[in-house]
């Protein structure tokens, strides 16, 4: 290592404030450039998954309602045709 101690590496002969500030900003920027698109993609996929699940549930409920209506109609017709009525 070029520096004798950790303190010397942090101080960098009085230039440490400038250098380490840029290091922190750069790494924050690098992190955000990589993490933000991953998080936004993950959020979008989860949203779409929820949307798809809701659509599926709505379609299932509509199918069940239609089925029960058909059953009611069938039972009504059977009662109408029942002997003695």
């Amino acid at each position, binding site marked *: *290592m*070029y*520096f004798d101690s950790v303190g010397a*590496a942090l101080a*960098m*002969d*009085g*230039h*440490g404030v*400038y*250098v380490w*500030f*840029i*290091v922190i*900003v*750069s*790494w924050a*920027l*690098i992190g*955000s*450039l*990589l993490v933000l*698109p*991953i998080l*936004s*993609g*993950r959020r*979008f*996929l*989860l949203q*779409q*998954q929820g949307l*798809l699940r809701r659509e599926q549930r709505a379609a299932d409920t509509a199918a069940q309602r239609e089925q029960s209506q058909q059953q009611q109609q069938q039972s009504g017709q059977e009662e109408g045709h029942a002997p003695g009525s």
Partner: protein
Amino acid sequence: MWSFFHKLGSPPWMYRISGSILTWLLPLTLLMLVSGSIWGLLYAPADFRQGNSFRIIYFHVPASVVALAGYYVMASAGAVSLIWKMKMAEVAMKCCAPVGAAFTFLGLLSGAVWGKPTWGTWWVWDARITSMLILFFLYLGVIALYQAFENKTAAAKACAVLSLVGTVNIPIIYKSVDWWYSLHQPATIKFTEESTMDSAMLQPLLLMIVAFYCLFACSLLLNMRGELLRQGARTNWVRELVSGGKVEKSTRGEPDVL
């Protein structure tokens, strides 16, 4: 060759191939960034005139170089979208702008911070710094222009024209230190001549430049993947992806978004 271009225009293919590229490029980029940072900050010798403040070079030069190259990538994508009306090029152009703006911002900020101990001032309105600021505004202009249009096809056309017009600025930035008197030092890395930098300082710098190019590619691909998903939200391939086994993992805390 042509089949590759046809494939490149297909969102599902692009999404898949970018995912497989990112699985090795992303760790490699992080490894290069970490090792380049440590090498440059802690192991490279200090500059005899600037002292340790010169170590800002390991972030300033790579960010600025990639900001300029990123603009060419954006303008090339804009040209392809204008000439061949390729949707994927529009996506690439749109996703280039924020990434390029981030690199330009880092180049400007690190330059200002480096200027204080070296020149005694944060900012001077010289040709290099002013043209770099114009580059930052060009990137922001492309982002704002795209958001301003409701019709995204018209937005992409306008952005493509703006990015193509803005390419005039790039050679000006490159040559500004030679054409005008400037506080900014001339280029230290030259393709035609030997570098004026000592190899102990140059090697980590070259590593960081390669790492920043890879970082640009990673960030661009990640942004493009997100944009492809958003644009194709109602298409079969996104629905298959969402309902398929890959995305099911995300509910268990292991989302497959790479």
